[in-house]
């Protein structure tokens, strides 16, 4: 589903190189964890997948279901099924969460040539999915992410993910800022979405999230490169020994 080949990227403004040759293949049904120390390029990878303009691709390619993803605009990628759960979800004052969900869903449906969902159908779907994530109607009426707690923001991201039913989910440090209970709710939400047709890339600093969302493959990212790939045991090893070995390995 996702093929990243020899991806090199830098920050457009100051030309600082962040990614230095990433190779990663994710097949439908798989959950890949990308772990790494701070500054290793994890968030950059997620932004590049979503199409943020601040980065410049200097080498390599990204194929999404065989199509060149780098040629697509961010909204085209979203409509094609690429979803990024942001590490820091953005606040949009004055726009109720519910309105936002409906606008996004119908925009994607339209891009795919589908009819917009009727209001009753939409409400029913949202309510059911929101209940699973312990999101109240009251929260849905509030402006998107404005005044949400850290946990509420992350749950709102997962709600959007479940509603938009993407093919590829990229979760950027979804565990950051969550307490144990919130982590469990969010993870359950994510696990519900695991399916043979859907792939996930879970970006995280800590192993604890992977206790809840058990990955098929674990990669270690350091200084812009994947330096080791293994199964879930690799995550446990990292938890015990830290990243020090890999930081050196990449140098």
């Amino acid at each position, binding site marked *: 589903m996702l093929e990243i080949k020899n991806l090199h990227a830098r920050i457009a403004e100051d030309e600082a190189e962040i990614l230095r040759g990433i190779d990663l293949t994710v097949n439908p049904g798989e959950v890949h964890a990308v772990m790494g120390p701070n500054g290793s390029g994890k968030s950059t990878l997620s932004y590049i997948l*979503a*199409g*943020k*303009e601040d980065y410049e691709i200097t080498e390599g390619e990204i194929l999404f279901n065989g199509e060149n993803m780098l040629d697509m*605009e*961010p*909204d085209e*990628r*979203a*409509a094609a099924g690429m*979803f*990024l759960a*942001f590490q820091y*979800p*953005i606040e*949009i*004052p*004055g*726009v*109720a969460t519910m*309105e*936002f969900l*409906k*606008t*996004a869903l*119908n*925009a*994607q449906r339209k*891009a795919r040539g589908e009819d*917009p969902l009727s209001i009753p159908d939409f409400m029913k779907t949202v309510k059911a999915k929101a209940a699973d994530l312990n999101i109240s109607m009251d929260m849905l009426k509030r*402006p998107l992410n404005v005044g949400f707690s850290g946990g509420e923001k992350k749950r709102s991201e997962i709600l*959007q993910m479940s509603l*938009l039913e993407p093919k590829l989910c990229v979760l950027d440090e979804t565990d950051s800022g969550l307490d144990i209970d919130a982590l469990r709710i969010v993870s359950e939400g994510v696990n519900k979405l695991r399916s043979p047709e859907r792939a996930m890339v879970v970006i995280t600093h800590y192993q604890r999230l992977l206790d809840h969302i058990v990955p098929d493959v674990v990669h270690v990212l350091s200084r812009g490169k994947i330096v080791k790939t293994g199964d879930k045991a690799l995550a446990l090893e990292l938890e015990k020994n830290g990243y020090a070995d890999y930081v050196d390995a990449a140098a």
Partner: protein
Amino acid sequence: MPAVQETIDQVKAIDVDQYKYGFVTEIESEKGAKGLSEETVRFLSAKKDEPEWMTEWRLDALRRFKTMLEPSWARVSYPDIDFDELYYWAAPKSVEGPKSLDEVDPELLATYEKLGIPLAEQEILAGVEPKNRVAVDAVFDSVSVVTTFKEELKKAGVIFCSISEAVREYPDLVKKYLGSVVPVTDNFYATLNSAVFSDGSFVYVPEGVRCPMELSTYFRINEQNTGQFERTLIIAEKGSYVSYLEGCTAPQRDENQLHAAVVELVALDDAEIKYSTVQNWYPGDKDGKGGIYNFVTKRGDCRGRNSKISWTQVETGSAITWKYPSCILRGDNSRGEFYSIAVSNGHQQVDSGTKMIHLGKNTSSRIISKGISAGVSQNTYRGLVSAHRKASNARNFTQCDSLLIGQDCGAHTVPYIESKNASAVFEHEATTSKISDDQMFYCLQRGLSEEEAVALIVNGFVKDVIQQLPMEFAVEAQKLISISLEGSVG
């Protein structure tokens, strides 16, 4: 947001340069002589069959006008207006005196239908009252062509008619209140209006009456080279309530047209007036050719204790907008509100804001202003909040936000905050920014197109003000804003 998708579709369906209301009604019209003179004033006063005192009032204003200079402090620029090249009177020939609905020229009825203005009076059928009924006074060039629901309103004691009719039928009320809020010599354009005002609405709500329906006036400029000088006067007696809405459009013409209105509101003890405007005069084309010059003096006098006046405006049209709906908070415990959305695109110039003059004790005011500039437009908020010596415990809160779309437009904020009373507490906040890249990216990541994302974020930006509008106009206003911003992205 129900309106977003609709807005997008609508935006896509029209060209950048297309103003939906730009058609001209082909109707035989009678014009007065060109130019501003005593003859012009006498002619139009006679046309309106006005009593002598009204004619004299006008002539006095004209004499004073001739001694005044056009103000230059606003951030707007335009070529000199030659007041002698304008017509001050134009009326469809078919209109003579007040009419009932079935006597109105079908061509005019068709015009209003095309503009989406309901002129029909829905009957109350089998005791089922239709919801959201609105009484309309329709002003076409210099005359009111019809006022609906007059009889029904009269039953409640509410007078709703054209100002011309009021001058004839209710001279005592008009004499008592006309010019009592905006004095004849208040400013250049108000004085001009006092001399040559053509038509507008008159509303009188008696003591203790809650006006049973929304009142509205719809202004249409049709004739070429004709100024429209509307005059509106609303009086809310003790303990009464009225909500009034005005709308306006004009055909697309290459020349600029002048609109100089005066609106006066008087609220007595415990009375409340809610005045909403959706201003959509022709803004000119994409090269800045044509468009209405809109110079408006609107002022409300909270004359009584516990009275309240609330202005809400959505300003999307006009080549030039010069407008400061204000409140004089004279009565103790009175309250003034100003909610404004001003959108400028293309070559539009907006200089608008409010004045909150705190005179009485425990008076309070609230200002929420949202300016959106795009294209090569200039958008200025100009406001005054002042507490006079005796205005103990006056309170004001002002929030003034500007949003810039594109790098060639300007957004300016010019507040004057004057406190002459120590117990007055004033708070003012203002911000200026563009739509943040992060917000845009977030929306795009969720699959919205750039245009959809801008519409969504802008709708969020103006929400606090939209909420102040009567329900049925809120959706309309939202659409209008997005249409006005068409072509500003990308």
